[in-house]
């Protein structure tokens, strides 16, 4: 049968450029075994391997769920692992890959005989989400090329953590160095694996952003207002929002602001953040302490008076918790809205206190209304009447959930900036030169 196939395989190999002939043959034979007509089988194979010129990505551009792209880097670490894959013992290789833009973990599902220090290019790679970060995956369908050794800086250079501004920290940073000021700090007792531990939590900031931090080691002399330099702090991601973790491998030194030039002060960091266009906020999966102004274009179902489980705080219906079964419940009020400013749309969650402010009625008043005149649904309808179309300013943290980017509001206000100024600025830009205004 082979000689009959040969011309077709040759044709396909030609059309597909650099795809392996053996892979094409296997694919074609499988299809023919299912008695797929030759023309149809060829079409399928072509389609499958067509996009062989894969888009090239750098590590900083990786996002979870990306498919069929090309990426290059140097292997920083690699480890062989024996696993049980659907009942079959098999070997995978996992490790870390780095380029000039960052590092990421990877899993190779096939033995490409890679070793630490190799500079490689992977064609037809994909990512999946692992520990809230994109992890590079490649296997039999991928092609791995060894690159000349000078394609990337050496391992030491790639693993050295260069100082970063907080705004630039993202998925591709496993470990960072930065200079930042402590703006919030508190001690907390936690129990981890039956051991009581004292940890420090708080917020640090620089001139670009603020981020939460956790220290698993004591930080002598560090207090609110201290400027610290830390090297080798690990970065954890949760729903796209980075947090800085300080452990025994992190070096923390206090910087004397009068001896070094520090581009920020306690005042500049603690200031209320300037509202950003929502389109710009959406560029990052998670941001700490940002502000936006837009129109409430929709009040989502689930807003209004709700019941919560007293154990886990989940929203419950008919006094039955998804996790804790039939239970007592307590009342709460919340508003879920979509805020849109013409550049982007973000979901905004308002807790009871903020809901009462924007709705203009307290939870008790709303409960009273339910008792006397309205149903729960009517409260929701009333909220829609009061809120839809209105302008709202919000401040809080954003994170990426399955429903897109959500901002959990910490404060809200009604934007009252002077539109007269904006009008006169615009008119200045629009006024054609030399036109007689009185004409």
């Amino acid at each position: 049968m082979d000689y009959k196939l040969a011309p077709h395989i040759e044709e396909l190999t030609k059309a597909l450029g650099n795809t392996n002939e053996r892979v094409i043959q296997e694919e074609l034979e499988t299809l023919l075994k299912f008695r797929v007509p030759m023309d149809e089988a060829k079409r399928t194979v072509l389609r499958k391997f067509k996009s062989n010129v894969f888009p090239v990505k750098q590590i900083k551009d990786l996002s979870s769920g990306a498919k069929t792209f090309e990426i290059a880097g140097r292997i920083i670490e690699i480890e062989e692992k024996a696993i049980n894959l659907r009942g079959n013992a098999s070997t995978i290789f996992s490790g870390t890959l780095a380029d000039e833009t960052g590092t990421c973990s990877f899993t190779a599902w096939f033995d490409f005989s890679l070793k630490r220090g190799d500079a490689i290019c992977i064609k037809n790679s994909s990512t999946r989400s692992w520990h809230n970060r994109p992890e590079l995956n490649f296997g039999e369908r991928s092609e791995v090329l060894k690159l000349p050794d000078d394609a990337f800086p050496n391992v030491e250079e790639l693993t050295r953590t260069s100082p970063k501004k907080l705004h630039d920290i993202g998925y591709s940073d496993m470990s960072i160095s930065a200079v930042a000021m402590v703006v919030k700090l508190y001690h907390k007792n936690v129990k981890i694996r039956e051991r009581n531990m004292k940890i420090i939590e708080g917020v640090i900031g620089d001139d670009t952003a603020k981020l939460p931090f956790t220290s698993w080691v004591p930080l002598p002399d560090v207090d609110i207002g201290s400027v610290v330099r830390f090297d080798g702090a690990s970065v954890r991601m949760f729903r796209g929002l980075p947090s800085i973790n300080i452990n025994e491998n992190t070096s923390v030194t206090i910087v004397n602001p009068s001896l070094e030039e520090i581009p920020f002060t306690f005042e500049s960091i603690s200031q209320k953040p300037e509202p950003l266009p929502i389109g710009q906020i959406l560029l990052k999966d998670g941001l700490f302490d940002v502000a936006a102004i837009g129109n409430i274009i929709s009040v989502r179902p689930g807003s209004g008076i709700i019941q919560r489980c007293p154990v886990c705080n989940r929203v419950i219906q008919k006094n039955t918790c998804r996790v804790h079964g039939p239970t007592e419940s307590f009342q709460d009020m919340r508003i879920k809205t979509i805020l849109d400013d013409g550049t982007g749309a973000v979901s905004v969650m308002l807790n009871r206190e903020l809901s009462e402010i924007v709705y203009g009625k307290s939870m008790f008043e709303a409960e009273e209304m339910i008792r006397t005149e309205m149903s729960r649904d009517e409260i929701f309808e009333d909220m829609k009447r009061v809120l839809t179309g209105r302008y709202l300013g919000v401040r809080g943290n954003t994170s990426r959930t399955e429903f897109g980017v959500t901002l959990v509001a910490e404060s809200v206000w009604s934007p009252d900036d002077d539109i007269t100024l904006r009008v006169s600025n615009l008119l200045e830009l629009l006024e054609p030169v030399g036109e007689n205004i009185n004409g």
Partner: protein
Amino acid sequence: MVEREISYRLFAKEFNDSTFNIHPKSEQLNQSEGRAPNFLVTPAGLMVNRLFVVGVVTEIDNIGTENDLWRARVVDPTGAFIVYAGQYQPEAAVFLSTLEVPSYVSVVGKARTFEPEDGSVFVSIRPEEMNVVDASIRDRWIVDTAELTLDRINTFSDALSSGLKGSKLNEYLIKGGAPESLAEGIVLAFDYYHTGEGYLQGLKTALRDSLKSIDLTCSGVSAFEVGNQEFILGLMEEMDVGKGVDYGKLIETARFRGMSENAVEIVVRSLLSNGQCYEPKIGILKMVS
């Protein structure tokens, strides 16, 4: 996951000038798990699926034969958006059936086109959310919309002066910081409408007029115009015995008291566009109380 469509801001003029509707290709449908939306491409390069408008409802009619189909005109300073709400928009239909005319409303909805055989294209909005709002929200919407439209006009101007076309132009615009959808929209609009500086200038004039229609007493527009407006409003109050004021008679009376026909026209147009008065019948003006 698919990002929520932005609710774009645009004036009725740009919306109604649009005749180019694009449907997703089957290939794109596959890639986006069947959720690629239709877009209306405007002459200024906006690819609109969802939009948010604030304006004055001046007419509501039930034009349905068997089922209710409500049609409303929502007027902004540059023209009118047509909104249709039928049986599949029950909330908006109920809203319109009880709404008083005129009133300020906000509308979130999808751009729809109707293309009868003869090649003409009618655009309208299929509402998702409607609500009554106040004049301050309307004013702020005009300012927002003017700002965003001007940004777009400037990007388009830049595209025109680059002399580039097609994918080269797309690349150039993205490098210049334009959002991807705008870059794509400008390339499409340029191909389809051959939009030139002339159209953009016309749009700028519309923006300027819109901004000038905002609450004249506080936006720094000449005291002269404010005086004229107060004069006309006073006159209308005087002449209106309950059925509105005949436009011709208004001009005549105003001329008699020393105001040119042209000036009356300017004031009346601005009163109409910012919703302080409306036309219940052609040629009859009525103040909004």
